[in-house]
């Protein structure tokens, strides 16, 4: 049986398996007609400026057109249409979304994966990033309504639905990116930026999440590259592996000089800090993959990640063919 996804497969999926409640978990509760949608109807045919008066109409459209990709857009003052596009109708808001993909880590992935490939080793980078972002958004920004989704291929999205974020403009969204970005130009220069001493919680989080994770993944050679002697590196790794008492990253790093500690933290950030796709967050009219829909190229659904993000692995998500076979 061929793995190629057909229109029939998609129609079958949207008719019998599509769960609109997945979508409703990421968008704020507003009159449905105010929301823009976009679709890839088939290879290369893309439409946007579509709105629907109800979820029923939306579902009917999915069954009729069987699109290979479904996207959610921003909220507008009224319904957008082909002849009354998003440029003609006043923008009202958009959820705040953070997107990061495995390929953003190509420069530092050591497992051999590239582009859309993902393995357990490089997926742990995404998990670290998610933990760091979630903790920062909840504690530093005070957001409460966060939902994580898997895009269906190689990335994850974090949707923030708190009331305060909906009207944020580009500059304000950009400031969140600035706050969360520790590696600039991830595909080129890869410049590490440490926060100022005032951003204390962020600083502590670098130790407790990124530093801690890098300690678990580091090798004696990595530490020697930072200038530690073989003996010093050995002592550090011995503390990391101790199970009787768990040492905090600060306690472990207190064994080495301040200069080496600084180098270690910079390296940890370079290797494991979140690499967010800025454009997705900043663009207030962005179309984002709709949870519950099928990622046409990957053949898997975009889904809400329930439970702990550290326990989620993309390979656990069934393919469209598997769903249909069930």
């Amino acid at each position, binding site marked *: 049986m061929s793995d190629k996804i057909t229109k029939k497969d998609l129609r079958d999926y949207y008719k019998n398996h599509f769960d609109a409640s997945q979508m409703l978990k990421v968008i704020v509760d507003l009159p449905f007609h105010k929301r823009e949608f976009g679709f890839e109807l088939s290879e290369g045919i893309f439409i946007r400026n579509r709105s629907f008066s109800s979820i029923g109409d939306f579902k009917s459209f999915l069954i009729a057109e069987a699109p290979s990709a479904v996207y959610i857009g921003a909220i507008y003052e009224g319904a957008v249409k082909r002849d009354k596009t998003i440029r003609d109708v006043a923008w009202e808001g958009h959820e705040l979304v953070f997107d990061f993909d495995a390929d953003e880590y190509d420069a530092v992935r050591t497992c051999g994966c590239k582009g859309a490939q993902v393995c357990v080793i490089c997926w742990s980078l995404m998990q670290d990033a998610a933990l760091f972002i979630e903790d920062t958004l909840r504690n530093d920004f005070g957001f409460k309504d966060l939902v994580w989704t898997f895009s269906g291929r190689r990335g994850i999205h974090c949707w923030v639905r708190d009331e305060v974020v909906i009207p944020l403009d580009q500059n304000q969204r950009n400031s969140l*990116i600035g706050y969360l970005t520790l590696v600039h130009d991830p595909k080129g220069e890869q410049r590490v930026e440490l*926060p100022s001493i005032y951003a204390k919680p962020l600083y502590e989080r670098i130790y407790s999440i990124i530093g801690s994770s890098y300690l678990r993944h580091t090798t004696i050679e990595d530490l020697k590259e930072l200038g530690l002697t073989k003996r010093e590196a050995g002592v550090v790794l011995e503390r990391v592996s101790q199970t009787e008492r768990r040492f905090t990253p600060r306690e472990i790093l207190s064994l080495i000089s301040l200069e080496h500690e600084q180098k270690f933290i910079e390296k940890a950030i370079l290797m494991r800090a979140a690499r967010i796709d800025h454009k997705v967050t900043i663009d207030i009219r962005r179309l984002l993959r709709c949870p519950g829909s099928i990622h046409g190229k990957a053949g898997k659904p975009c889904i809400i990640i329930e439970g702990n993000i550290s326990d989620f692995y993309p390979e656990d998500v069934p393919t469209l063919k598997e769903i249909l076979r069930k």
Partner: protein
Amino acid sequence: MMDLPEWFPLQKQDSLNVERKYWVEEANLRLSRLTSGEKWTLNKTPHLPQEEWENRVSLELAGHVLMRMASSMDDRLTGWLIEVEGDLFEYRFEKTPIQKKMAILRALFGSEAVFTLSEFSRTTGRDLKREFGLSESSSILQKQEIVYDAGGVEARRSVKRSISDRGGQRRIITVRFDKASDLVNNKKVLLVEGFAIAPLMVFNGTIKSSFEKQLRQKIRETKEQLMLLGDKNPVNDILDKITKKMNREIEFAPADGFSIELLGKRAQQDFDLYPPCILRLIGDMRVKGYLTHENRLQLGLFLKAMGMSVDDQLRFWYEYSVDNVGTTYEEFLEKSNGGYQVRFLYGLEGAGTDYKAQKCKTLQNRYFCFFKHTNINNIVTAIENRFHEEHEKELLDKVITSILSSVTRGYYWDACSRYLSLLSSPLKKTNTIYHPVQYVQQAVKKTEGKKASEEQEKDKTDSEKNKTQQETQSEEERVSK
């Protein structure tokens, strides 16, 4: 009811409590004070009768509102008014007591977005003193001081120094993250549960920007109302008079769409005229061999604004990037897909958009501003390296101190104009820099002025030298006779 200071010009006013016959006079008075750079504020002295005080407040606000109306139809007048009113606001805000400052903050940001530290602690139930060592006022500074014990051994002790905090500038306040985007973006504040927490003075730049933004909005609304009224507006004649006067009195900095003719060929060839952000990008390219996408865009659009043709710019990228050493120009073109990116900037590829160079505000937020994105030590080194031969150390240190003061307060455009002043007369006030091309225009003017006065000085010295020579010669002739 908020306890706003009387002078605060954005508070709601139902009408101008001033007789119509005084309107032009009041607007003109304010105009001449603003054009002269005067800074003043309104204070009620104990012996001033209430009626007189109210009259002064009404005249003050009427002057502001009339200028707002008169400038609303002309973008250049609007821009000028926002800039000078912003400076005046900044001056007055600094002189205002803390309670009124908080009222202004609540008026600008919304009462749900500003709290004192104790209000914030009460609302969130968090003990910020215990968690972060914060107290309401940072006027007591904990300092480490080196002391010597009886045996002359060096020790450190913690001492508390009380410092003056007039106006509550060191009072710790909390402002919701979306109202302090720049500070959040640069990770310059403590952020707790969505609120940026810092001494009030850290927010000064943000507060001024917010005032200017809201003033712009008010002017926009005024414009819409005036357009609706059209010829039926009964005060058109008065507004006309004020607008004409404004146009006569104000000396404008060059507007957007800077004319390359004004810059002359010199600007394309003399890197000394370029702002520090651009010099740094060119330097980075020569050293590292590449720039990030944003940096390439910034430099490319700047060079385009300097009048460089597509071909000249392609040559520029080829010659200045160390990555191209050993590569022929043809190979470079092939590697860069026929110079796609450069051609894109000129609207010759992609959607055909003819992009303009970004203004400073955009550069500060999304691209590279030398003063915003460079470490303080590196700023000092860069200035010293560039200007140490041209200026006395004492003078240079003075300018560097003022630049750093602007940088730490977040007034990057001010830092840039002070930097520009180093090209000729460091202590002379220069226009605020809001666009890198405007920087070049000012630099051309300044250096030409300097060159002219140097030549004048040289001519004077030469003529004195000639005169002395002639005198000596005639004296010699007289003696020989």
